[in-house]
């Protein structure tokens, strides 16, 4: 019973509360009450969907990773734009990427990153969380793409979720 009244995800609750204050026109009694109700209700309703938190999460590494991804998104968009506007046909390829990460949250961050960055879309994760299927828009060499993803994105995530 006590668990029904708690905040299972304190950071999510805080984010929801402050976002609600910014979204409403000025902070008032009503917006604070509604904000608390949302900050309590939404984590409670969605608690079954969240994976267990990882054993160690080094959150201070997240901003550097986010900046690198943001920069790569811009570079990737320019590359895709060049390819779309050039007359030659792209050389698409499906690639199986063997995962080293095992936490579900880390895997979903990695797949999202892959989808937003250089010429690749993460298409599927195998049921045993060991392989990702990647579709690459314009690939020369399978191994090169796997090595790039491993060095640039998976290593920092491994450091973050150990």
């Amino acid at each position, binding site marked *: 019973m006590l668990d029904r009244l708690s905040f299972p995800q304190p950071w999510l609750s805080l984010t929801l509360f402050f976002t609600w204050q910014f979204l409403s026109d000025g902070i008032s009694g009503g917006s604070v009450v509604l904000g608390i109700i949302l900050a309590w209700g939404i984590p409670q309703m969605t608690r079954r969907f969240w994976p267990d938190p990882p054993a160690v999460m080094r959150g201070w590494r997240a901003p550097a990773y986010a900046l690198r991804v943001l920069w790569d998104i811009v570079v990737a968009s320019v590359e*895709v734009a060049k390819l779309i506007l050039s007359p030659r046909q*792209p050389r698409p390829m499906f690639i199986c990427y063997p995962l080293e990460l095992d936490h579900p949250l880390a895997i979903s961050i990695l797949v999202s990153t892959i*989808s937003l960055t250089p010429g690749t879309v993460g298409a599927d994760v195998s049921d045993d969380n060991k392989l990702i299927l990647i579709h690459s828009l314009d690939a020369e060499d399978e191994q090169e793409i796997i090595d790039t993803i491993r060095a640039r994105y998976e290593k920092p995530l491994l450091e973050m979720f150990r």
Partner: protein
Amino acid sequence: MSTFAEIAISVLLLVGGAFTLIGAIGLARLPDFYTRLHGPTKATTVGVGAIVVSSVIYFSTLGRGIGVEEILVTVFLFMTAPVSANFLAKAAMHLEVKTTENTRGQTWDQ
């Protein structure tokens, strides 16, 4: 409004519009579903992101505060674009959508 802000806003608007257009051209021009998936997830997301950032700069130089809505829209778009691309790719693999002849590698469906 300062000249610098005006230039920044105009350039961001034009870059955003160009990327949105390129994403749509990719959607219309590329040969199969999986290649078409790349245009909207990258070019269009960045294009709309640039337009929204220019709106943030515009209203903050007019002195109307920083827009939380704009920032929320951008964050939301960047978070959801890969998720919906992933869902659509799974659906396409399930339906065994045709790929172009020069595609290497195999899809799977589980």
